[in-house]
């Protein structure tokens, strides 16, 4: 076994420094690590800029980081699907518009139609609305997928058409009216004080997360041990588990560090007949529901991409479509299903976006396609196909959102914001190509 690990490094084995040895032993994706540090740099940069020019660094506050997490959810969910689309050498330009039409239809469904039959505020309204929205998103995605896979129209054209068609349709559904407010239960999916799981709920989720990481590492190790394959050194496994757990627990501390605004606390106290103690009541937000949804989607999509046949075929098709076909993979059906899955995820994002806004407007999701594609590409998905990771795209989404809300926070005007985001996208991809060449 020792011999295997030795020889797998191939000829020209050079003496490695401690950093390299650490990275090799833990098998941490160095590209990922680079992105993580870039993100920290952006965060600290905004904080410092805020301190220097505005007198207070508003970026690294519990409140801002909590808001950042909620704002990222919708784009992050869609970015996970965009990874699969771009990996198979396609593109989806229609996600923003599909989000718009789906949110509009959900708005009409839950505000105009369902209350007529169930009565206003019926507890089933949000369930039916979400199911309806997911079905609409999936159907639109599948329809575009059929055009791409079976009628062989390039995905760029189909979804460019979709970008216009579905945006127009979103206006047409309610003649441009804004539908508001949405069902009260539905609105919780968008986050907010009531749409978060609170102090203990957050610690519960965090601990479960840590345990899950440990179990996953252990089961991976057992799998490889079963066949006597080379294993990571035990210290590397422990370090990995410790780092992941620390990140999860840090997220929990941040989410719990942001307390309910005083107005909401007063409202809440009045409703529950609690007298406010001296110095006010500190109620933690905890993880917001949309953030948990995004985290769950990230885990589920990572599982699908790496542990299932479906995911394996996605990457095989991206690497060599002809080989995939010759290996007996039904590539047309796969393409259709990938676009249907994208539509399903857009349905989730439409739910989050309209719930957060507490209304459905025909402009919802405008330019989202660009942010989703940018997040995916910044996250390391190659437009040439075959390469990409779900967690990379999630991190890419956080980078994009950090830039955006950071610039709002420090007071850049919107023209400058656009220019910076566009510039960063190009520079990020340029740096990545340099990195890729270096690795080879």
């Amino acid at each position, binding site marked *: 076994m020792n011999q295997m690990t030795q020889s797998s490094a191939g000829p020209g084995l050079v003496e490695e420094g401690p950093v390299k040895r650490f990275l090799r032993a833990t098998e941490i994706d160095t590209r990922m690590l680079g992105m993580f540090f870039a993100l920290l740099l952006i965060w600290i940069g905004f904080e410092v800029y805020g301190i220097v020019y505005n007198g207070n660094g508003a970026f690294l506050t519990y409140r801002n980081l909590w808001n950042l997490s909620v704002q990222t959810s919708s784009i992050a969910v869609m970015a996970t699907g965009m990874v699969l689309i771009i990996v198979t050498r396609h593109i989806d330009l229609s996600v923003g518009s599909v989000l718009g039409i789906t949110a509009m239809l959900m708005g009409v469904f839950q505000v105009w139609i369902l209350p007529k039959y169930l009565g206003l505020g019926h507890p089933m309204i949000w369930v039916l609305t979400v199911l309806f929205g997911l079905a609409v998103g999936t159907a639109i995605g599948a329809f575009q997928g059929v055009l791409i896979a079976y009628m062989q129209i390039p995905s760029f054209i189909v979804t460019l058409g979709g970008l216009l068609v579905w945006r127009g349709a979103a206006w047409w559904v309610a003649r441009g009216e804004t539908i508001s407010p949405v069902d009260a239960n539905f609105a919780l999916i968008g986050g907010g004080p009531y749409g978060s799981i609170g102090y203990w709920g957050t610690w519960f989720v965090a601990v479960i997360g840590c345990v899950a990481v440990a179990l996953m590492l252990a089961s991976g190790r057992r799998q490889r041990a079963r066949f006597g394959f080379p294993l990571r050194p035990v210290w590397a496994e422990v370090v990995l588990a410790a780092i992941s757990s620390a990140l999860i627990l840090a997220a929990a501390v941040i989410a719990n560090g942001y307390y309910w605004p005083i107005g909401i606390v007063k409202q809440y106290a009045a409703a529950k007949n609690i007298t406010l103690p001296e110095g006010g009541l500190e109620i933690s937000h905890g993880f917001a529901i949309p953030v948990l949804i995004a985290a769950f989607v990230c885990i589920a999509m990572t599982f699908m991409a790496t542990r299932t046949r479906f995911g394996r075929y996605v990457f095989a098709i991206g690497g060599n479509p002809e080989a995939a076909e010759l290996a*007996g993979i039904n590539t047309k059906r796969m393409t259709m299903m990938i676009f249907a899955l994208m539509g399903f995820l857009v349905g989730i994002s439409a739910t989050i976006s309209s719930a957060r806004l507490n209304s459905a407007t025909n402009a919802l999701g405008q330019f989202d396609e660009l942010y989703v594609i940018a997040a995916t590409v910044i996250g390391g998905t190659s437009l040439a196909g075959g390469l990409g990771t779900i967690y990379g795209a999630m991190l890419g989404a956080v980078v994009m959102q950090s830039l955006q809300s950071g610039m709002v926070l420090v007071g850049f005007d919107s023209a400058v914001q656009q220019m910076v985001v566009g510039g960063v996208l190009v520079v990020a991809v340029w740096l990545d190509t340099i990195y890729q060449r270096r690795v080879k």
Partner: protein
Amino acid sequence: MNATAEQIHSETGKTPLVELRDISIAFGGIKAVDHASVDLYPGEVVGLLGHNGAGKSTLIKILSGAYPRDGGQIMINGEEAVINNPRDAKAYGIETIYQTLALADNVDAAANLFLGRELLTPWGTLDDAAMEAAARKVMGRLNPNFRRFKEPVKALSGGQRQSVAIARAILFNARILIMDEPTAALGPQETAQVGELIKQLKKEGIGIFLISHDIHDVFDLADRVTVMKNGQVVGHAKTTDVTKDEVLGMIILGKCPPGATPGPGAARL
């Protein structure tokens, strides 16, 4: 045209493993394969020879399900087989090593070996460890120096990639093996290994179609040759009945020597 099979194998009375009868396919008016018939018996190696563009690869891609044929029949063990796509062909035990290798470059060797036929855990997820174990076993037989199981196959050398493609074909107990230029990217030592492998597979009763430009290779390994020219079969011959020069004459001029059975593409001289 089936006369060939009967003439050569009448003494044994066996049914052919594969019989391609009157296969035709045209691409935009060009008859890439024109009423070609070939057969293959268990434990036999048939070499398919011809110039570039003679129709060898196309004919074989019809058998492996990659191209839909315009006309003709495919018989497997004397019964008509329905082959419309690569999955159908694999169900009949037909495995193919393509000239282009047909590997997904971005995934590792094990993922390529099992592409389309992944091993699953009881929970329906990919059993990567089991696939890697099987990959190590079969690669150990083909290319004992191969160690790079964790890398995408695009990082491998030409010879290593070729051994992955070969391993994929023999992993699933093929009954019929199609090898399209299997040694094109290999060094002399690896080529010899493939030769050994072919002899071994033959002993196991597997029928092999060997497509090659290298007439020496074919004479070393094949029991019979079928020569194609311009999409038509020039003729069939046992390698013991003809000389290399005569076969070259078949390839270049379409001239059928006395030791061979002429096909429809034989030049009328």
